[in-house]
Each structure stands twice: as structure tokens, then as C-alpha cells.
């Protein structure tokens, strides 16, 4: 299975995504640069990672949405190709029109960085076999994660089962506590929380450094 991870100028979760996905059995990660316009047809999945593409200039995701590679991504998606956006990747997918709605400044303006509980919403290939209501603990790290959408579009989204994830509690003022959505065809999905930051079982060696630090301080005392 070939997964493409796109790096835009200012992406900062591209390494984490590539590493995290690369740990999975049978996954081959291809790194893509935002200026690549080659055919993406051989990929099984394209991931738009989090970060601050183009320094969030103009609007989050606005500049990345018109990057050269995004024309190819749109074409890939229009043929049914699977596209997944995390955090800034989600913002880019909304800006490019691949997903409905938009993500704007959090209700209380602050940048929120913490672990939160979300629950699986409408059933979709993005969450199967997890059933609706399954709770997940994932970190969020965003200043502009308040999902907004007009009521007409929302009722269409609800009708077509496009609400992929909701926060358990209201965190950022997101409409109907929405944390992630899909397009109507269910081949494009975006979410604000970061699965790649909660999917690393490979090394606990960081604990050895923390333990050494503690030991050093204790011995000095």
C-alpha cells in the first residue's frame, strides 16, 4: 500500500505522519513536495499533514490550497482517490473546496494544545470498524479549529452521514462540536485532532532520558 504525504512550506507534522504511517505493516510512504505535479494515480492514499503552511498567511490553508500539487490532488479525489487531512491539512481541504465549511479562529482566541476525547460520528470507511459513539483520546493543537458551516449545508451533511468525529465537550466553539468530516462521497476526510501523535509504540527510550534527568536532580539534592 502506497501512501503519499505532502509537505507544504510550513508543514510541521509531515515527518510525524510519515514516521507513524511508516511503522504500519505493508505501508510504503512516498514524500511529496507541494510543487510536485506528477500523477498521483499510483498512490492508495494521500495525507495532508498539520502545520502552518505559508505561515497561515491570508487564511489558514488558503495559500496551500492553490499550491501546484493541489490541482493533482483535486483530480485524484474526483476519481475517487482517498485523501486525508489532519489539522492544517483539514483547513487546506476546506479551502480547496474538497470538504464543505471552513475553519476559523477558536471562540476564545487561544491556541489549544491538549489531549481531548472525541467520539466517532457517522459510519464511514475512515473509522470502520469503530462504531458510532466510540470514544478516542487524541491530542489537538490548533488556534483555528472552529468549524463553521451554514445551516443548509449542515443539514445536507447530516443527511449524507458526513460527520466523522465530534468533540465530547465544546472546546473551540466548533459548530455542533464537529472535530472531523468527510465529503459526500466519503473518499475525502479531514479532522483537527492528530492521530499521528498518538500512534507511536516503537520507542520508549525518551523515558530513559527523563529518568536520567530525575536521577541527576535527586542525587544533587
Amino acid at each position: 500500500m502506497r501512501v503519499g504525504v505532502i509537505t507544504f512550506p510550513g508543514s510541521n507534522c509531515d515527518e510525524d505522519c510519515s514516521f507513524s504511517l511508516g511503522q504500519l505493516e505493508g505501508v510504503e510512504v512516498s514524500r511529496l513536495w507541494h510543487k510536485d505535479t506528477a500523477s498521483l494515480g499510483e498512490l492508495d492514499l494521500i495525507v495532508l499533514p498539520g502545520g502552518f503552511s505559508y505561515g497561515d498567511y491570508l487564511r489558514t490553508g488558503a495559500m496551500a490550497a492553490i499550491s501546484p500539487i493541489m490541482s493533482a490532488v483535486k483530480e485524484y479525489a474526483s476519481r475517487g482517490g482517498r485523501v486525508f487531512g489532519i489539522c492544517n491539512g483539514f483547513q487546506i481541504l476546506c479551502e480547496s473546496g474538497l470538504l464543505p465549511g471552513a475553519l476559523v479562529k477558536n471562540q476564545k482566541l487561544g491556541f489549544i494544545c491538549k489531549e481531548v476525547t472525541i467520539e466517532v460520528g457517522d459510519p464511514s470507511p475512515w473509522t470502520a470498524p469503530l462504531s458510532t459513539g466510540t470514544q478516542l483520546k487524541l491530542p489537538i493543537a490548533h488556534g483555528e479549529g472552529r468549524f463553521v458551516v451554514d445551516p443548509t449545508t449542515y443539514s445536507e451533511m447530516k443527511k449524507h452521514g458526513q460527520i466523522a468525529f465530534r468533540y465530547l465537550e465544546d472546546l473551540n466553539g466548533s459548530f455542533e462540536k464537529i472535530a472531523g468530516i468527510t465529503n459526500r462521497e466519503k473518499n475525502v476526510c479531514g479532522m483537527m485532532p492528530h492521530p499521528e501523535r498518538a500512534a507511536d509504540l516503537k520507542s520508549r527510550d525518551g523515558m530513559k532520558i527523563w529518568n536520567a534527568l530525575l536521577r541527576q536532580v535527586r542525587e544533587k539534592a
Partner: protein
Amino acid sequence: MKARIHIFYKDSVFDPQGNTVAASLQRLGFNTVKDVRIGKVIDVTLEAKRIEDARIEIGKMCEKLLVNPVIESYRLESIEA
């Protein structure tokens, strides 16, 4: 030619910045303040023979990049040679 574009969140989109500034103004004693909305101003210098051409060009720019119609609306404030 020089064009000035004003961009604001649509009325239906909550503007937390404007809301916070409104509360601060009221705290300072400006009890007349009912609401504050904060937007942005974009100045574009462009080449165009006629104002009408520039106006059409600016409209396209707003559509393609400068404005997200899902959340924002805009007004071409001025356009001059």
C-alpha cells in the same frame, strides 16, 4: 492602478476578536458600544488600462484567493489610477 478591498467575516460568523475588543471598550467606559467587527484591508497595485478592467480583475482575485465566500464577504472600497 490601486485598489483597496475590505474583507469581513459574514454576519453569521462569530468574530471572537471583535467580541473581545467590544468587551474591552465597554470596560473602559464606552457604554455606547454595541458591537465590534474586525476585518482586513488589502491594497492591490495592478496594471490596467481602464478602471472597469481593474474592477473585473479584482473581482476574480477575490473569488479565487483573497476571499473565502464560505465565511467572508468583501467590498471594493476604492479603485483609482
